[in-house]
């Protein structure tokens, strides 16, 4: 049980860290830029919200199997299979949790008062400085929400990680899958403990999200 919880934690942590870097530019573009294909990008980002996780897992699996281009490239670089590996699960999780990182950031960016962004320009700041000194501090709340939701959502994955990871004990078997297997094998007491732990984690993370949301509004203060 500990093994699967640790794997879940590692997976969520890795996914969240990667997502912060991936989601930041995407959220920025969606919040401020108008361009052709904007709607497509928005739909693409939101797709994991409605797609059956097994469908996403299926396509990721197609992409990373040893003779597919991504799987092959990976194999030649790292000499190991991406399919049914921890790294493969990270890739799938990044895609699966993308909307949970992008959308709160995008909303937070949009809520930054226009005057603050204009001030950044007046003060001669370039994009990097504007991010560092204005945009990120002004949307701190939204970014913490993105972190918490990405982490919690990855902890709660089931279908995607089962498809891509294959539930190998000690490697790709995460807590949510182990719970399923415990119930299947009628290990009621273990199952109840694991379920309770997962419930507690989600509860704590969501509590953080809501309290951050309430406290971090610069605009109203």
């Amino acid at each position: 049980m500990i093994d699967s919880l640790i794997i879940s934690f590692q997976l969520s942590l890795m996914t969240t860290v990667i997502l912060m870097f991936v989601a930041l530019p995407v959220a920025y573009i969606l919040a401020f830029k108008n361009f052709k294909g904007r709607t497509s990008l928005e739909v693409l980002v939101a797709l994991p919200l409605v797609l059956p996780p097994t469908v996403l897992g299926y396509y990721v699996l197609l992409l990373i199997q040893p003779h597919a281009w991504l799987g092959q490239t990976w194999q030649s670089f790292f000499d190991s299979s991406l399919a049914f590996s921890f790294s493969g699960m990270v890739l799938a999780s990044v895609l699966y949790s993308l909307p949970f990182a992008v959308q709160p950031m995008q909303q937070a960016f949009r809520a930054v008062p226009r005057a603050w962004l204009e001030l950044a320009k007046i003060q001669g700041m370039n994009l990097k400085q504007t991010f560092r000194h204005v945009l990120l501090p002004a949307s701190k709340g939204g970014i913490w929400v993105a972190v918490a939701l990405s982490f919690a959502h990855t902890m709660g994955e089931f279908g995607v990680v089962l498809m891509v990871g294959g539930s190998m004990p000690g490697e790709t078997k995460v807590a949510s899958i182990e719970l399923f297997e415990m119930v299947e094998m009628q290990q009621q007491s273990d199952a109840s403990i694991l379920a309770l732990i997962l419930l507690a984690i989600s509860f704590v993370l969501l509590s953080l999200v809501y309290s951050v949301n309430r406290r971090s509004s610069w605009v109203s203060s």
Partner: protein
Amino acid sequence: MKHHIDINARFGSLKLDVQVAFNHELIVISGENGAGKTSLLRSLAGLKKVDGSIQINQQLWLDSAASFLLPTEQRKLGFVWAGANLLPWLNVKQNLTLGGRKYEYFESILEDLALISLLERQPSMLSTGEAQRVALARAMYAKPSLLLLDEPFSAQAPDMRHRLREVLKTWQEKHQIPVLLVSHDVEDAKVLAQQHWYMREGKLLKTITQKYMDKVKTND
């Protein structure tokens, strides 16, 4: 004339259409609400999209015929909004040095604007007038190429207003920086203006020069 403006644009019902040239002067702009005063300042700052051309200090900022636009962040501007526009998570000093501009005369401006004792304060602990003076100092100390002021004294008590006018006047004479000051206060025009522009419906109705005003003053 060192600076040339020839711009036009339509913002909703307002048709902005301004052609004017000026030197390193302190210019007061007045006119009714909705006359386009703020729009003019924002256009010069590059925060509103306009057609035409802007040239300040032999530097081209806008030439829409040649599709040239110098981005706001490269114009080295000072701009004081009608609201102070301080970032709430930074203290006064951090707000002043935002963007890491090089500065000279920092101390003397802080002293002139009565800000020395407020440097460590958070914006939420400032009065509206104090916040406005911070914004003014931020715009002034970096020696901008052009200083745009939108009702910069509106939140000040009469004494402080008087003092700020003197500070601004001395600063402008010393550094020879063009200043456009939007104000409804006739006293601002009387004390400060080397030129007075009156705006109506997006146009400069008349520009009154120093000579004329000297005449008015001597007639008073």
